């Protein structure tokens, strides 16, 4: 409860962070209830294609005659779903590897860190594209796993260095004297101490995953089926939206949807940073 009170106090002082939090909540709500509120058809209806904005179609219609607003709403869930799933995977793997490696130390730590270094150096996005092109999956779990293939490395490194410094502290000595098993040492003793860092990294991992996911659809590497913002952009581009002004809304709505979400996540992550890192609050 104290956590929420602190969060609210900081958000109230930091307007961008507050707006970020509200925007994230709205997106989550749309992702959950959106598919019940509206629907999108896949039949072409030329009479309704590229209509200008009206009361019935606030953002106009696309080349099939679907409401762009409905598509945006329907498209929220798949994007958020995969983004959050990928971030959960990144955080789980990164924290586990980092904590165990840092706490155990020794040869295992050296080996794991060299592997981490390799993953940190390989450019993530091209690797994701290569894997996605070979696997060609529509399952959100598989897509999230592909997107998190290199993301865990940075977190693992940071968490490991924290675990290294925690290793010599008194409460860890005390726990060790009690003969607690490794699982307890990692999950109950070390994890709560790196929690703040993990929370911030989680938000940034969501932005990374959404960036890469939309990119995959945009390039046509992920299978084009269903409706999401990346697919909307892909279809808009392939319908020549860059060369005409009549479909500007169709092209720019998904872009704005992505930008708002990304910016909101980054701004909110700064409030989290302040919440956990009291030294920042003085400034």
């Amino acid at each position, binding site marked *: 409860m104290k956590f929420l009170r602190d969060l609210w106090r900081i958000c109230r002082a930091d307007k*961008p962070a507050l707006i970020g939090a509200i925007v994230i909540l709205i997106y989550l709500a749309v992702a959950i209830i959106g598919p019940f509120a509206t629907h999108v058809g896949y039949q072409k209806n030329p009479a309704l294609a590229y209509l200008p904005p009206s009361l019935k179609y606030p953002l106009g219609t696309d080349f099939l005659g679907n409401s762009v607003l409905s598509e945006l709403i329907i498209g929220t869930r798949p994007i958020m779903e995969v983004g959050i799933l990928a971030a959960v995977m990144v955080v789980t793997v990164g924290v586990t590897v980092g904590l165990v490696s840092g706490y155990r130390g020794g040869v295992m730590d050296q080996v794991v860190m*060299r592997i981490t*270094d*390799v993953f*940190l*150096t*390989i*450019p*993530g*996005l*091209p*690797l994701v*594209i*290569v*894997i996605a*092109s*070979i*696997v*060609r999956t529509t399952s959100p779990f598989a897509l999230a796993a592909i997107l998190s293939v290199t993301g865990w490395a940075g977190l693992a490194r940071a968490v490991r260095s924290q675990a290294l410094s925690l290793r010599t502290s008194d409460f860890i000595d005390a726990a060790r004297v009690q003969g607690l098993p490794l699982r307890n040492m990692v999950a109950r003793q070390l994890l709560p101490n790196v929690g703040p860092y993990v929370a911030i990294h989680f938000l940034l991992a969501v*932005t990374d995953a959404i*960036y890469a996911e*939309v*990119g995959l659809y*945009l*390039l*046509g*590497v992920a299978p084009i089926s269903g409706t999401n913002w990346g697919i909307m*952009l892909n279809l808009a*581009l392939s319908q020549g939206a*860059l*060369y005409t*002004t009549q479909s*500007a809304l169709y*092209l720019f709505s998904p*872009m704005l949807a*992505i*930008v708002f979400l*990304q*910016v909101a*996540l*980054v*701004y909110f992550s*700064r409030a989290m940073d302040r919440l956990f890192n009291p030294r920042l609050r003085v*400034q």
Partner: protein
Amino acid sequence: MASFLAKRLALALVTIYAVVTLTFFMVRLMPGNAMSYLEAQLSQQGGLTTQQIAAKVQEAYGVQPTGPLWHQYLSYLGNAVHGNFGTSILDPGKTVLSVVAGALPWTLLVVGLALLISFAIGVIIGTLIAAFPQSMLAKIATGVVSFLAAVPNYIIALVLIYLVADQEHLLPASGPYSLTTTPGWNVSFISSVLQHALLPVLSYVIVAFGSWALTMKGSVSTILGADYVRAGEARGLSRYRVTRSYIGRNAMLPMVTNLGLSLGYMFGGSVFIETFFVYPGLGYYLVQSVNQRDYPVMMGCFLLITIAVVVSNLIVDLAYPLVDPRIMSPGRARQTGLTVSGRAAEAQTADPAGRPAA
């Protein structure tokens, strides 16, 4: 120093080896196996004997498809060492090496220019924001910068194409140079190359300079309050000297560290930017070959992007001792007064290495 460089070099080699191995097993073992896909495609076309199909597959991937896996792996490695990555499936006359070697300079040109420009702008803006945190301009700049740093680069690229290139026809939006110019060291060709590179470079810069500025701002504002800066001011050193030697050089350290990390992002981003600007670099060919299922070219592009990132990382590592001499001889900081040469003494005053490591 030598061990530092040896470690970085070893890491670079291991990374390249890992990627070569990864590409082999992805082509060979993943579901939808690319080599058997090609075999199936060739046998569907008909008119070819099994041996002919095997020979074609071997030509494309440089590997005998029927041999045992470890044997295939070894011959793949041997080929890779000799720069033989097979030939393009769609265009059998072209070796993968010639495709990627032709693409690399364009990617290096655009990514290199973008990195230099965004780094320079970021340093200047970040320093200004940190120096005058209360001014209205700094507040606006912080807002703009942190907003832009969160926008995906492909969106910037698409907006630029829409606004500047396609609707207004102000700047060329596709290709590396105008077809009416002849490649060579002449003015019209070079200016055409720069004109065509302008929008792609701009798309990188708009996204990247924000995070440089934020890093620089954070770095400068922690150093502003440091004891050794106050000590320098108290000794009556000129403002310029304090800013340049005490604040500037130390604030650059996290920036140089970040250079290595951002290289992966920059080269990765080429996938989008080169595709949308139809710019024939590695990212463009990577996406093209992915969409056409030309796996040898795809793997070659991926490998070369990785090598480019690894080599640029090595260059950053080599340059790091120039920025932070403490890395060369970690013990020297404690031997103040016992400096060997005048050059070292000068380095000591320029870089306040005499302070105990934090």
